[in-house]
């Protein structure tokens, strides 16, 4: 090749490359008008909402799989895939009927066989499902669109179990997929929800794509959380995974993405100052911070030591460490339950309303605390747990406890908290976590409030009073009975310190102003969201 021919071919290549770039940009802009680019709270690393119960999986699953019922913003379960239901006078036999015309993304009709198999898989993993399973004699199809559920005793919370938004939800899958062992991951992602999962574009850790399902028939009622018509106003939703919060905020400002589920609170003032961006509370049910103690070993096997910590605890310290100076983002929480919800109670929560270090020291002295080190296993890769851990270290020292602070990552906390061995032999004394407010509305999915010893959540509290009130709530026949059970439950859990709530906090979401229809809710609801 001589110099001239080289220059000629190089020029042609550059022109072609440039035209390719222009074409790509044009295509991207055309597609961009109907494509919503969303940055979720976390990476969608797997996509089986029964096998993996992380919230990010539940949120994506709500697009792809429909549910039999869906709770609305008043926490009332409303029909979704179900057309009608009847319950026998003795409350033992439930009969359900699917609404007509429901189809899976592969074109096959949704039948009662699919529903029954999906419910069986869900039951194996869900606390409410397990309760129903324990009292069920039959769960079987009647015909293609109906099925029955026969119980040995009434279960008043049946519709809540089928419509709740806590993971795992009753997502309905084709029978062949739902036959997968609930402890194994599914390999096909076929649902009957308003969007299809585009598997060949899924890059775990980077991108997940959903396309509008043309055959989806939304309900006629207006959308309200998981209930009502799930009408999609965009053709395609791209979930762009961004591990760095500053990059995500910059991408939103630059118009490279449309909606951030959880912008970093430090960057919210910058986003609020941008005329093209809306900022508002994301999930009004927020989160409850938790100081989880190990009830099996000293020092926290002693109720007085637990009470001493609760007495010395100042929730404002914890909340400011997590959310900073924005007072809209936190509330003191003298309760285990989500504020602003129908069953919320502060009964027994006086201890958390005013910090009393002197009283805490007195309780600690009475407990016979012998100076055993408190092994605090604190995840540093989660902003909330790191912040709470720093406050806890000072709190424990302030009342005279010896602290052994183990700074680690969340993966290690996840493994170590399952160890029942003594703290000095690979076990632990306390760790921090948080519970989504949506899970703490009532005891139905609130595993952290349970105190049934070996079967309880990490820390294994054993408090029969708590358990009897949980049972009373499940058996409650009306709102008054539910409220009474909740009040007693809160008091019993406070008195025995099942765990120590460190406060209630919220987070913002942010979206560009050309996006309309964004609502606050326990998960990002994409139906009704449009892009101009």
């Amino acid at each position: 090749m001589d110099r001239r021919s080289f220059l000629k071919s190089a020029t042609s290549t550059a022109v072609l490359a440039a035209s390719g770039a222009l074409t790509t940009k044009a295509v991207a802009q055309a597609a961009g008008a109907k494509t919503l680019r969303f940055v979720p709270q976390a990476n969608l690393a797997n996509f089986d909402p029964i096998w993996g119960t992380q919230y990010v999986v539940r949120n994506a699953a709500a697009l792809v799989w429909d549910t039999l019922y869906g709770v609305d913003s008043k926490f009332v379960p409303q029909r979704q895939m179900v057309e009608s239901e009847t319950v026998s006078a003795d409350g033992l036999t439930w009969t359900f009927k699917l609404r007509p015309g429901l189809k899976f993304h592969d074109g096959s009709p949704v039948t009662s066989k699919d529903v029954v198999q999906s419910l069986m898989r869900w039951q194996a993993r869900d606390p409410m499902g397990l309760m129903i399973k324990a009292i069920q004699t039959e769960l079987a199809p009647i015909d293609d669109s109906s099925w029955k559920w026969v119980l040995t005793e009434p279960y008043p919370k049946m519709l809540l179990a089928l419509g709740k938004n806590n993971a795992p939800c009753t997502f309905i899958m084709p029978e062949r997929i739902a036959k997968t062992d609930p402890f194994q991951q599914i390999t096909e992602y076929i649902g009957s929800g308003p969007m299809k999962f585009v598997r060949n574009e899924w890059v775990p850790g980077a991108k997940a794509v959903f396309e509008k399902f043309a055959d989806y028939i939304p309900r006629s009622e207006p959308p309200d959380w998981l209930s009502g018509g799930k009408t999609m106003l965009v053709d395609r939703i791209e979930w762009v995974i961004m591990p760095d919060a500053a990059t995500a905020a910059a991408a939103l400002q630059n118009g490279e993405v449309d909606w951030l589920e959880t912008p970093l609170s430090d960057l919210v003032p910058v986003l609020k100052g941008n005329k093209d961006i809306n900022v508002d509370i994301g999930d009004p049910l927020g989160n409850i911070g938790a100081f989880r103690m190990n009830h099996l070993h000293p020092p926290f096997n002693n109720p007085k030591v637990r009470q001493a910590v609760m007495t010395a605890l100042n929730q404002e310290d914890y909340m400011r460490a997590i959310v900073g100076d924005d007072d809209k983002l936190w509330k003191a929480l003298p309760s285990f339950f989500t504020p602003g919800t129908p069953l919320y109670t502060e009964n027994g929560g006086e201890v958390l309303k005013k910090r009393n270090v002197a009283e805490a020291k007195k309780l600690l002295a009475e407990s016979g605390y012998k100076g055993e080190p408190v092994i605090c296993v604190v995840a540093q890769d989660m902003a909330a747990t790191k912040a709470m851990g720093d406050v806890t270290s000072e709190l424990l020292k302030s009342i005279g406890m010896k602290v052994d602070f183990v700074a680690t990552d969340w993966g290690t906390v996840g493994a170590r908290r399952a160890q029942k061995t003594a703290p000095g032999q690979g076990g632990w004394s306390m760790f921090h976590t948080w519970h989504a407010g949506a899970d703490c509305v009532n005891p139905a999915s609130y595993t952290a409030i349970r105190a049934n010893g070996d079967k309880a959540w990490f820390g294994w509290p054993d408090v029969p009073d708590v358990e009897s009130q949980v049972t009373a709530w499940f058996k409650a026949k009306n709102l008054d009975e539910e409220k009474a059970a909740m009040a007693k439950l809160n008091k019993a859990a406070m008195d025995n310190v099942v765990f120590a709530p460190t406060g209630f906090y919220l987070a913002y979401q942010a979206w560009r102003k050309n996006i309309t229809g964004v609502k606050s809710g326990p998960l990002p609801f994409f139906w009704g969201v449009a892009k101009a």
Partner: protein
Amino acid sequence: MFAFIVRRIITTIPVMAFVALFVFSLLYIAPGDPAAVIAGDQASPADVEKIRQSLGLDRPYLVRFGEWFFRVLQGDLGTSIFTSLPVTQLIGQRIEPTVSLMVLTLILAVAIAVPLGVLAAWKAGTWIDRVVVAFAVFGFSVPVFVVGYLLAYTFALKLDWVPVQGYTPLSQGVWPWFKNLILPSITLGFVYIALIARITRASMLDVLQQDYIRTARSKGVAQNSILFVHALKNAAVPIITIIGIGVALLIGGAVVTESVFAIPGLGRLTLDAILRRDYPVIQGVVLIFSFVYVLVNLVIDLIYTLVDPRIRY
């Protein structure tokens, strides 16, 4: 030469086997539990245990290592615990952005650092030399993510010249590909440029004091010719060595750079896998990176023979 290459490739096998054993053992004794991450925070301890059993994580070390090792020998790196996708597929999805980032960084770094180092050596003791040395110190001292944020803020957010984040495959056009990669490449290359420039300067200073350079000058050879033909060629061996060693820097830096610029590459895959304890993915990626590093060193050894005819294998 051919015998040398064959010999080096054969010696790669025990190195890779040792890396495999080391990585597997390290992950085995490291704390953490993927089952707990999969099950979610609300899962009961019993559910976590069932998931652990279903993943085979409760089996003895030797059984797990043996199974994995024999699969690797057959070219199968296993299946991701989280995604249930083959590790080779996950690596395949991520390899293009990382290779693009590293190659562009390498080109930029060499193109900038070598002339800078030569210039500093030529102008040794002057303000030019001091500026280059100061830049090298700065490059070593500033963390990658700080450089990344500053560049993104200036050139993406304020000037809107390039995107803040993401990656566009080369198949969608050279210009979109380049626009996405230029900031990450400069970010990643910062420390690399500093390293190469410093070594180039030191090596050139040494060569420029040799007798044959004085002879060339006295014969009236042009300055450019002295610098780039006579001196640089003789100073090249340490420079090439440091370029090879620096590939390890690039691999480490890619993890941070890909996170800051949301590039879906192998660095982010590694980080995500470590945080979730996705053992097969960590093992697969580390093996690949080790292999690349061994290969790069082989190539460097071969390049020595091109720049210095005295070196023979």
